[in-house]
């Protein structure tokens, strides 16, 4: 595969994630509405929302600093880049050599760092509450995610996502308890990171219970569009990440032709659909937990991933 193809595939990848992200969010909302016996808005609604927000004027608080204004751009760029790194339909991406899991976590971490700062920037109490809750969640979710990365890295002997996907596709890995534990842990982290029930409620109007929404309450217009877009990209990112590491089937590998690439794209959309349905069903069947239970929930995720890593050590005598 030439450099040109990989650059082309990388560009396609960046555009695909951007195009599909609002669709995934819309799809999850639609499935949830159907589960609640409602008709639900069209799957295209998030696209319309973002377009509408882009056209609207951005209102800023008088005391908003440069940080508040630049955060949406930083956040969107970081998450878009992170989503672009994950092999979704092909492992032959131009950025594949730089794309490892640690870089991914760093990108997500910086996006969160800036958003939490921006939440406090204007000085409203809700922003502060949201930021402090977000950091509490992050302090537990990030180590859990790192442990998942370590488990996988020990197994594959690489943190490069492309290599992990190729390795998992090769069938050399077999069934492993560690991977199952890592998967559960990663799903729990994904739920927390994407502000889904039971950790946060993406659809709530109750200011006092919000986490993510509380931080972005002061945003409007194009800033809000970017933040909403970034949240949607993040949801897609986690779905793609879980798909890439634990279910990479159908992805175009090294030396694949264009038919394989198209096949890869189709399976990716299919995987997103499955992830969306599972998420919607899970969210409908559970109530939101108390804020302080989030620690226990994510502590559980951390323990599971830790256990996975320990199993690997014990079983392989690394």
């Amino acid at each position, binding site marked *: 595969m030439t450099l040109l193809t990989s650059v082309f595939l990388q560009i396609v990848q960046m555009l695909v994630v951007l195009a599909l992200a609002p669709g995934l969010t819309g799809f999850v909302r639609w499935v949830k509405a159907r589960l609640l016996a409602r008709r639900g808005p069209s799957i295209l609604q998030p696209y319309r929302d973002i377009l509408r927000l882009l056209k609207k004027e951005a209102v800023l608080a008088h005391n908003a600093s440069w940080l508040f204004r630049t955060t949406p751009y930083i956040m969107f760029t970081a998450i878009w880049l992170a989503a672009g790194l994950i092999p979704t339909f092909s492992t032959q991406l131009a950025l594949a050599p730089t794309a490892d899991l640690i870089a991914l976590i760093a990108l997500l971490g910086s996006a969160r760092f800036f958003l939490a700062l921006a939440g406090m920037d204007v000085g409203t*109490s*809700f922003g502060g509450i949201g930021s402090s809750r977000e950091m509490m969640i992050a302090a537990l979710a990030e180590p859990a995610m790192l442990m998942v990365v370590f488990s996988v890295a020990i197994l594959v002997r690489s943190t490069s996502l492309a290599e992990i996907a190729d390795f998992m596709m090769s069938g050399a890995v077999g069934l492993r308890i560690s991977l199952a534990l890592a998967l559960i842990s990663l799903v729990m982290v994904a739920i927390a990171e994407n502000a889904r029930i039971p950790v946060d409620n993406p659809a709530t109007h109750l200011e*006092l*219970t919000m986490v993510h929404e509380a931080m972005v309450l002061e945003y409007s217009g194009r800033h809000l569009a970017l933040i909403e877009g970034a949240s949607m990209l993040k949801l897609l990112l986690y779905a793609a990440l879980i798909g890439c590491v634990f279910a990479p089937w159908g992805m175009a590998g090294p030396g694949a032709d264009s038919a394989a690439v198209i096949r890869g794209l189709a399976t990716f959309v299919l995987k997103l659909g499955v992830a969306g349905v599972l998420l919607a069903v899970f969210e409908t069947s*559970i109530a939101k*937990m108390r*804020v302080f239970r989030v620690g226990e929930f994510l502590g559980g995720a951390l323990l599971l991933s830790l256990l996975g890593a320990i199993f690997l050590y014990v079983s392989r005598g690394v």
Partner: protein
Amino acid sequence: MYFGEDPLFGLLRRIGKPVAGHRPWPRYATTAGGWRTMIEALGGNGWSLLGLWAEPGTVHAAIREDMAGDLAVVSLDCPDGTFPSLSAARPGAIRLERAIQDLFGLTAERLTDARPWLDHDRWGVRRPLSDKPAAPMPNPPPYTFLPVEGEGLHQVPVGPVHAGIIEPGHFRFTCNGETVVRLEEQLGWVHKGIEGLMRGKPVEDAAKLAARVSGDSTVAYSLAFAQAVESALGVAVPPRAVWLRALMAELERTANHLGDIGAVCNDAAFAFMLAELSRLRELVARTADACFGHRLMMDRVVPGGVAVDISEDGPARLLELVAELRRRFPPLVAIYENKASLQDRTVGTGVVSGSLVNRFGAGGHVGRASGRGLDARRTPSYAPYEDLEFEVPVRTEGDVNARVWIRICEVEQSLGLVEQIVKRMPGAPRNEKGERPLPRVPVEGPGGEGMALVESFRGEILVWVRVNPDGTIDRCHPRDPSWFQWPLLEAAIEGNIVADFPLCNKSFNCSYSGHDL
């Protein structure tokens, strides 16, 4: 109280003179000394303050002796514009006295909290209902919230404009991290001037106003107003109207409770219950529409009877509705009961102690969830509930879960009541043309004063009214059950975390509109 003396009337005979023309319970005029004796008695157990309202130069207190269920009104003339405060004996009176200060300019002596309540200095006039309304203050001082001191405390102001489409109220949280140290409410944002608007209105027009004091309890308010006016004028209502009114009241109770149970679950982000229970609530609303021509049955209860009789197929539809709800409601209750993630949110959250509920005299699900099993349909009771079988559910935990369960049990009781009423309601004799005459009598009389206590889905609504001889309303005071429930919300949230407030608030579901008058 002296030995062998009737607890309530014995006391009242000692301290005051009965005033003629107040029905169905007596009214006694007393002196400042007698008023203080009454305050002493009120401080004891077994007494409730049901309401405290004013007119220029006079304050009235409605009190109840809970054991016997006797009611009376005590009135005090205060020519110097002051009256001894009830707040030391009954803390529930604090906000009522603050409202009296704002509206009538009568000052409560030794009131523990004399800040304005309903008046936020945004009206074009001060003391609007007094004899001499004053011009607004040129530079009103900002409202001072109660001071809170301590290290690491921060304040979270919420409202009066909220992120959802709900009524306005301001909540000032003082927190230590996530834990609420103090919550202070500031209400009055939807003050409509109900008492002022009622003055001089013909009874029919005033009834429309009464029906709109708090829209979700429109039947209960209409019923309370109608009963008060009928008592004042000595009008006897046709029996069929009495039963139809109870039917509407129970339908309203069922619909509201179904909605509330779902809304509590939704605030724990369990939207499934809200979706399913909203369907059931919709079923009730549609049946009400088919039976009485209005989904909420607004303006269907009028002084003198009812504005519409039930439709021909109404009884059959209602029995169908009861059967349908009995089929579809219990599985949802089972889901509520068995959903661990939901129980984790509701059990033990927002506890109100029984002693507090008794001190404030809170009724409805707030009182009954904390062991105060009073229900206006039982004490003092009104027709036709003496002839109907129902239970008043009581729990003692006082948490969100208990308040949800009270509602669940009341839905079941109300369904039983609807069934009994439909089956036993007196029939409507048809005239020679085959039409059913409307069970309604003209509201006429020489004027007088009347009071009524009616159980809404929130608790007991008190309406006091004085009708002029020409058939217009001289004074009317509706007292929403929320007056005695709002203060308890401040107590319920203490020590809980900020994020649990919406859940506690929804489990109370107090009325803003009914409270703000």
